[in-house]
């Protein structure tokens, strides 16, 4: 393969990368010399994904990387028809059906598909590298599935900054990540609220044994309860939550330990380096310098917001968050936050259930906190009744044994 221009300086090429217990660096990762371009590299482990990314960064190739399970046969066909050679985990390559000129340096991401089939969003290493300036030396946990926006955020931070090591957590290691993290001295970790809740639910002491200085949450609405739990375990750590997506990039970063963001951040004077946040009706609208290709201008995010005093809370997806109970409207996200605020609840999902007379009723699934003894349906109804209007109180509550999780580390909330 011919040498191509670098897209971003690989300042972190000698940073530590721990994969499958092996201590390597970006530079000493195995190489993928025969990788075509454009290529859709489907992986079944984190090391191959990092090797594909480094190859892309060094040679400026056009790359889409994703876990094999996220890309079904139909999507593989579509990728081939769009000019991508599809590379499978065993190295087998299906040549592109469409021959075209590569877009040098283009990195493609797949959206999470929460609003339908995943879409391809075009980025570059520059638009994906949103952390700038000197960073304190850190070793980052990497629990995200390869190819997701959050994965790109962590790996580009490590590849383009000095002293930002990585410890890759494979899917089968997720239940035991605190042990692995403690063993390798992880000091920073980014995960969805579901990821953090599951970890605390399973083994709060184990989580507390990891010497975390930076905790980041993103990918789902962040509620006050999980921020408070993390603060209790890590009183000195910086706890941040980030609103980011493949479409608009990392657009909101909050470090004050509170859910939501200050209302004063809305409609600020435009600044080319800072996203502009606005609300249209109940929808969050973002004009971002970190947007994907072709998404210039204001992007309607599809996320619903609600005001709480001087804060703006992101409560969930617009099309599923609002529950209409006999003409009275309530936010599933708000109800969920109330449930999550109960000390006996580790996780909750709130949804609408079809019901006679009122059309829809609020229902919930709950995972109790095993450390605090049993809780009952009546306990939760009573808790919610004193904090919500009567139509917002979940009338049917199902108790689950464990927190459901998807490959994206999100739950269906």
């Amino acid at each position, binding site marked *: 393969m011919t040498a191509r221009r670098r897209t971003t300086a690989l300042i972190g090429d000698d940073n530590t990368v721990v994969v499958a217990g092996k201590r390597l660096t970006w530079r000493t990762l195995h190489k993928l010399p025969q990788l075509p371009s454009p290529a859709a590299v489907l992986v079944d482990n984190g090391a191959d994904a990092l090797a594909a990314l480094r190859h892309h960064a060094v040679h400026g190739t056009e790359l889409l990387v994703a876990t094999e399970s996220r890309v079904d046969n139909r999507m593989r066909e579509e990728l081939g028809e769009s000019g991508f050679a599809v590379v499978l985990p065993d190295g087998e390559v299906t040549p592109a059906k469409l021959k075209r000129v590569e877009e040098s340096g283009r990195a493609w991401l797949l959206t999470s598909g929460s609003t339908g089939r995943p879409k391809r969003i075009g980025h570059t290493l520059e638009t994906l590298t949103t952390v700038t300036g000197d960073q304190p030396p850190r070793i980052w946990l990497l629990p995200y599935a390869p190819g997701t926006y959050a994965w790109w955020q962590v790996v580009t931070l490590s590849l383009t900054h000095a002293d930002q090591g990585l410890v890759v957590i494979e899917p089968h290691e997720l239940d035991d990540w605190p042990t692995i993290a403690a063993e390798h001295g992880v000091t920073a970790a980014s995960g969805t609220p579901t990821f953090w809740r599951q970890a605390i639910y399973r083994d709060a002491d184990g989580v507390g044994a990891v010497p975390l200085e930076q905790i980041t949450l993103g990918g789902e609405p962040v509620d006050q309860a999980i921020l408070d739990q993390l603060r209790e375990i890590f009183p000195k750590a910086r706890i941040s939550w980030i609103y980011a997506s493949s479409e608009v990039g990392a657009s909101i970063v909050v470090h004050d330990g509170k859910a939501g963001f200050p209302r004063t951040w809305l409609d600020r004077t435009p600044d080319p380096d800072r996203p502009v946040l606005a609300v249209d009706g109940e929808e969050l609208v973002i004009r971002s310098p970190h947007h994907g290709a072709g998404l210039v201008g204001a992007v309607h995010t599809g996320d619903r917001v609600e005001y709480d005093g001087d804060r703006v809370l992101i409560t969930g997806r617009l099309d599923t968050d609002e529950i209409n109970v006999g003409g009275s409207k309530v936010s599933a996200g708000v109800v969920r936050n109330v449930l999550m605020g109960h000390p006996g609840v580790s996780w909750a999902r709130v949804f609408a259930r079809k019901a006679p007379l009122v059309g829809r*009723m609020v229902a919930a699934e709950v995972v109790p906190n095993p450390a605090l003894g049993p809780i009952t349906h009546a306990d939760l109804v009573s808790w919610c009744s004193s904090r919500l209007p009567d139509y917002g109180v979940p009338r049917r509550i199902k108790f689950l044994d464990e927190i459901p999780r998807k490959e994206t580390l999100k739950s269906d909330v």
Partner: protein
Amino acid sequence: MSFVARGRVRELMGEVMTAQGRTLPGDDAADLRAIGFRSLDFSELALRVEDELGVELNFDAPGLRRITTVGDVLDFIDQLQAA
């Protein structure tokens, strides 16, 4: 199709009332408004019955009717299950 007996529906109705901090009287003639059994409570009762049956009740089948007493609720749920 399985059937939730009238006595069991009454128990479920009692559970709905208890969850709301109220008590279901033993008299089927008790007025719903007087005992505070509202639309939301009726809807919750229907969901509880559906959960026991494992299927959705078909509320379109019976014609609209006036439901004012505890007995009316029990009759109506019976009728829905038979539909």
